[in-house]
C-alpha cells in the first residue's frame, strides 16, 4: 500500500516535471508573473517593517526631562523621582554635562555650539520610564506632581507626539493589514490567471487522460505539484531580486544617509520571509484549485 502510494507520488512528480519541461516558455512566463506578484508583496512588507520599526522608536522613547531652577538642590527632586514606581533610570546633568548632552544630540552640527558658555545651560534630570509605565494618565500625573515642586523650573515630555505616534502606529497597522490582504488576494488572482493559461493548453490532454481511465486525482495531482514548484521558484526569484536590490541600496550608502535622520533600515527577518513563502504556496495551490475547478 505504502509502496503503491510512493509509486503514485513519484509518477506525479515525473509527470509534473515533464510537463514543465515540455512547455518551458509558457511556464517561465507564468512563473515570472507569479514572481512579480510575490515581489510586490515582499517589497511592501519590507517597507512596512521599516516604517513600523521607525514609528516604534518614537513610541519607546519614554523619557521625561525635568529642568531645575538655578542654584536649586537636586536631591529633593531626585528623591521624589526615585520613589515613583515605573521609573527605569534617572540621570542628573549639571551645566557642563548638559552641554555634552546637547553636543551629542546635535553631533552633525555641533560646531554651532562653539564658544557658548556651559553655564548658560540649565541643569536637568532625565527620567526613563519602563515600557509598562507609559499610559497617558500616569505620565500626566507625574508631570503635574513634578511641576509642583519648588526646585523644578519646567517639565517636558512628548505628550502630544506620544499620542499622535500611538495613533499613527495603529493606523499604519490597520492600513498595512488591509494592503497586505489586498496583495494576498491579488497574488491569488495573478497565480490563478497564470496557471489558467497553462491548464487551458492542457484541456485536450485532460480529455484523453479521462477517456483512458484517469481519476480526477491522477490528473490534478501533477498540476498541484507544478504550481507548487512554480510558487517556490517564483518566490525564490522575487526574494533574491529584493535581497539584491536591498544590498545595492546598502552598498551605495543610502543607509548611512538615512541614519542621519535616525532611520535604520532593516531587512526582513526569517519569520516574515516564511510568511510570504507560505502565502506564495497558498496562492499557487489556490490558483490551481480555482483555475482547474471548472474542468472537474
Amino acid at each position, binding site marked *: 500500500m505504502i509502496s503503491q502510494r510512493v509509486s*503514485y507520488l513519484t509518477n506525479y512528480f515525473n509527470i509534473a516535471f*515533464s510537463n514543465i519541461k515540455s512547455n518551458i516558455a509558457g511556464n517561465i512566463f507564468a512563473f515570472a508573473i507569479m514572481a512579480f506578484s510575490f515581489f510586490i508583496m515582499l517589497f511592501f512588507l519590507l517597507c512596512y517593517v521599516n516604517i513600523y520599526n521607525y514609528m516604534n522608536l518614537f513610541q519607546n522613547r519614554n523619557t521625561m526631562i525635568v529642568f531645575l531652577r538655578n542654584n536649586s538642590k537636586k536631591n529633593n527632586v531626585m528623591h521624589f523621582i526615585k520613589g515613583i514606581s515605573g521609573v527605569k533610570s534617572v540621570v542628573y546633568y549639571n551645566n557642563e554635562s548638559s552641554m555634552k548632552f546637547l553636543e551629542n544630540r546635535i553631533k552633525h552640527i555641533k560646531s554651532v555650539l562653539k564658544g557658548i558658555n556651559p553655564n548658560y545651560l540649565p541643569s536637568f534630570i532625565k527620567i526613563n520610564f519602563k515600557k509598562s509605565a507609559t499610559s497617558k494618565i500616569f505620565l500626566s500625573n507625574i508631570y503635574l506632581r513634578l511641576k509642583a515642586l519648588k526646585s523644578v523650573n519646567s517639565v517636558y515630555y512628548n505628550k502630544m507626539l506620544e499620542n499622535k505616534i500611538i495613533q499613527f502606529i495603529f493606523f499604519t497597522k490597520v492600513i498595512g493589514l488591509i494592503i497586505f490582504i489586498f496583495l494576498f488576494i491579488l497574488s491569488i488572482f495573478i497565480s490563478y490567471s497564470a496557471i489558467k493559461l497553462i491548464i487551458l493548453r492542457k484541456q485536450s490532454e485532460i*480529455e*484523453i487522460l479521462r477517456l483512458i*481511465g*484517469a*481519476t480526477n486525482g491522477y490528473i490534478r495531482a501533477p498540476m498541484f505539484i507544478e504550481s507548487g514548484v512554480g510558487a517556490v521558484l517564483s518566490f525564490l526569484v522575487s526574494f533574491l531580486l529584493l535581497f539584491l536590490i536591498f544590498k545595492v541600496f546598502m552598498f551605495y550608502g543610502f543607509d548611512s544617509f538615512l541614519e542621519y535622520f535616525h532611520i535604520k533600515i532593516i531587512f526582513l527577518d526569517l519569520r516574515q520571509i516564511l510568511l510570504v513563502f507560505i502565502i506564495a504556496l497558498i496562492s499557487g495551490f489556490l490558483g490551481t484549485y480555482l483555475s482547474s475547478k471548472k474542468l472537474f
Partner: protein
Amino acid sequence: MHLIEFSHVYKNYDKNYVLRDLNFTVDKGEFIFITGPSGSGKTTTLKMLTAVEKPTHGAIRFMNAALQDLRPKDIPFLRRKIGFVFQDFKLLPDKTVFRNVALGLEVSGIFGGIITKNVSEILKSVELYTKKNEFPPALSGGEQQRVAIARALVQNPQVLLADEPTGNLDEDTSKIIMDIIKSFNNKGTTVMLATHNKNLINTGRARVIDITKS
C-alpha cells in the same frame, strides 16, 4: 450472462432523439460492427458504454453493472476495463510512443518494470517497437492509429471500442489496422467497431448491429 446489454435505450439531445429503443447484447469474445449513416448514433452508443454520455431512458449493463446508475467516482474504473480507439487517434503529441502507451497502465496505478515489459510486448505486436522513442507527429496516420490501439489494449481490457478507426486512413492502411484488431479479437478480446464503411463490414464474419433500425 452477457458482457454488454442495451435494453430499451433512448438518447435525446433537447427534443432530438438520436437513439430510440435500442436493444442488443454482446457476449465475451464477439466481434461486432455497429453501423448506420452519419448522425445515426454510432458514436453516442460507444460513448454511453464509456459513461461519457448517459442514456435518457433505458438500461445499459456492462459486466452486470448498470452504467446509467454509475457514480462519477466509479467512471474511471469502468473505463480501465474498456479500451477506446478514436478516429482522430487522440495521442499526446509531446510524449513518445512508449509514454503514450504507458499512460494506459499508469492511470491504473501500474508502475516500474511491469510497464516496460507490457508496453514493449504490445508495441511489438503492433510492429512499432522500433519507433518507441518517436513522437506522434513524426508518425504516419496508420502508425498513430496502431499506437492508439496499443494504448487501448495494454490494459488488457474486457472490450475494445473503436469509433471509425480507419476513417482517416487509406485503404491499405485500413486493412492493416483491421488485421491488428482482428488478431486481438482472435486472442479473446471483445470488439465493438462503429463504422459506416460497407467495405470494412464485408471483410469479415462479424455480427452487424444496424442502429438505424432501432
